[in-house]
């Protein structure tokens, strides 16, 4: 009876592992199919070593059109602080010149609200384009810095 129980538990765990693996395969297939390398455009968010700022929301505007906005939980802010990168937006984009605007809302350690807007003009060729919204710590001025950087 106990052995049956253990077998069932093991089968459930194996199933879980296989389902996770299958879903990952499906996710990869979806990205390849829906966002081909020639048109793929993605925006990431990272926050390195910033202790006195917690991001609460980010709104993205691409070529003067609102494309996405995201609200962060405390756990997700912590995940960013601990080195995580979030893929906030993915889509297909045609070649040419484009403009990305990121509106970042957050709070500092004293609870004061902070709102910053960063803009990036970039060119898109017939290949993937990745941009990263970077929140870093400006040690000299003791405040957070915001920038959009292009991945080479």
């Amino acid at each position, binding site marked *: 009876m106990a052995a049956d129980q253990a077998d069932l*538990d093991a089968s459930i765990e194996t199933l879980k592992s296989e389902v*996770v693996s299958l*879903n*990952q395969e499906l996710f*990869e297939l979806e990205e390849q*199919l829906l966002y081909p390398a020639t048109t793929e455009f993605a925006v990431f968010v*990272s926050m390195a070593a910033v202790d006195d700022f917690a991001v609460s929301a980010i709104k993205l505007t691409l070529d003067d059109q609102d494309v996405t906005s995201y609200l962060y939980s405390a756990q997700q802010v912590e995940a960013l602080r601990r080195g*995580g990168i979030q893929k906030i937006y993915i889509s297909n984009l045609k070649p040419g010149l484009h403009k990305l605007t990121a509106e970042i809302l957050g709070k500092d350690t004293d609870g004061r609200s902070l709102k910053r807007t960063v803009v990036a003009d970039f060119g898109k060729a017939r290949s993937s384009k990745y941009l990263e919204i970077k929140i870093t710590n400006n040690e000299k001025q003791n405040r957070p810095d915001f920038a959009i950087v292009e991945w080479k």
Partner: protein
Amino acid sequence: MRWFLLIAFAISPSVLAEDLLPEQYRAGGQDALYGQALFSLHSGEYQKALGLNQALQKRRHKNTPLLKIQQATAQLGLGMSQQAKKHYKKLLTAKSSKLISHGTRAQAWFYLAKHFYNKGMWSTALQAIHQVKGGHLNPQLKDEFHFIAATLELFQGKAKQADKHILAISPQSMWAAYAFLNLAVSYTERDVHINQVDAVFEKAKMLTKYTQHPESLEDKINLMAGQFFFATGRGRSAIKHLKEVSLDGAFTSKALLTYGWALTEQWQYHDALQPWYMLKTNHSPLNQDVQETLIAIPHLLEKLNAKVMALGAFDYAGEQYEMIYKQLEESAKRLNTGEFIEPLLAQQIPDKWGAFAAIDLSLPNHPDRIYLKDVMSKSYFQGELKNLRDLHVMRSQLNSGIEQLAAFEKVQITRRDEYQQVKNDKRINLTSRQLLKLNKRYKTLRATVDKAFKNPSGVGLASEFEKNQLASFKQLNTDFKALDENGHYLQRLRRVEGVLKWALSQRYYERKKEVSKNLAILDGKIKQTRRQLKAAKLAFRSTPKSFNGFDKKVARLRTKYQQQLKRLDIVYQKQREKVGGIVKLDIKKRQKVVMDYQLQARLAAARLFDETSNKHRVVAGAEVRQ
């Protein structure tokens, strides 16, 4: 031991809410996949994290030992503790893990111990906690580490080691209250003087202010203290603690029941009725404390010598037990017909699964909601139901995956059609022909225009009559020169000629303006046609063949999904039977208890009926005799 179990499960929700992972920062600047895996893991999306982790391991990412730890952590998060345990043990004891820092190692062992502690695997948890080197542990986790270590040592009966850990916990930490509660409970098992036990319970109560839910914990401590003092025959102390339990908390029913018994033990029968009536009227009869009260009330009435009332109460209790028994039987039937567990699973949030995702037990307007709440307080059932919920969620994920694959197939077909359409398009030929025609027309027109507008005097635009007039003017000019010595005729001729030339030049400018406009329109048309031709040519050249190669991938994945679904259905049925078996057994146990109560109530009712009838007979006999 049952005390310890109570405490361990009482704190488990707050323990589960914590993140499991060691402090580990992303090394590469733009290592997107690794960064995303870290983000998912730290933000509690274990399924995504595990999937990305598997992808990283396939690509042989450089941080292999760390990836393995992260994999084990995500597995723990998804309730795959056996696989996680294997990974952790292999990793943390392997030589290859030298790369892992002491801090990370300590934290990994700590989280492993914590997980086994939550799962109720005490000895394995103790083995793991012994591996934690406290000096290397993150200061924020030290109090929790000492708490878990102390509790585990207490489970093993090693009081001295436990005491050391308890003393190491900071009093301002939320863990201090739980630790002192555990200490108090251990004192009750160790025959420590009652005053000391009471003092530790009081200390635990004082420290509840640093916890997340101080009122609830204080209620729990009061109930535990009350139950302990009642069990050891110290009714007054029990009453003191039980009176402090709030009347609208999770522990109210148990506290009211014990409070009544403690008062009964103190011969305060009248006072004891009050909490029991309160319990009976405010809670469902399916609550086991209410069931006990149903028989306890007439028992108390009998003690108060209110035998007729007691007889009525016993009869009422008997009827109630009959009803409860039937309700439990109906619950068992609903379990077989899929009206109990299935509605519960259907209302779970899709994609929320794993060890940390709580089950929504609300079941509004369902006849089994009270029973479910009661049975769910048992942790072993929670674990099994979570496994069933996970399988249910996975099944819906697999089904939605198959639907998604069907949608992908449609996308492919659409793209193939689009491609074929572009390739078969005759637009290029048509546009080329149109462009040629336009160019030809433009050239002819240009030549005519150039010829007409060559002379700005407008002679090119003169009509035949006007041309004849101009020629005759020339002739007349020569003739007049020979005849007219004074030049009168010549002057008049020049005036007439001037009028005609003026009209011609005016016409020239107007026509030129008009023709330029028309030419510009034609030019624009030509340019547009050229652009169209260029675009059509580009589209033809660059039509994406992005549907290529996906046919096989989609088909292969669909087969995998279908096979997995079949396997999952088999396991799901087994787990469903297991959960059903647990509930059936529980229902049977409850029915047995109810039957026992009913038997007692009926026997007592019969006895009382007999006694009260005899009394009537005795009284009646005495009256006759008088």
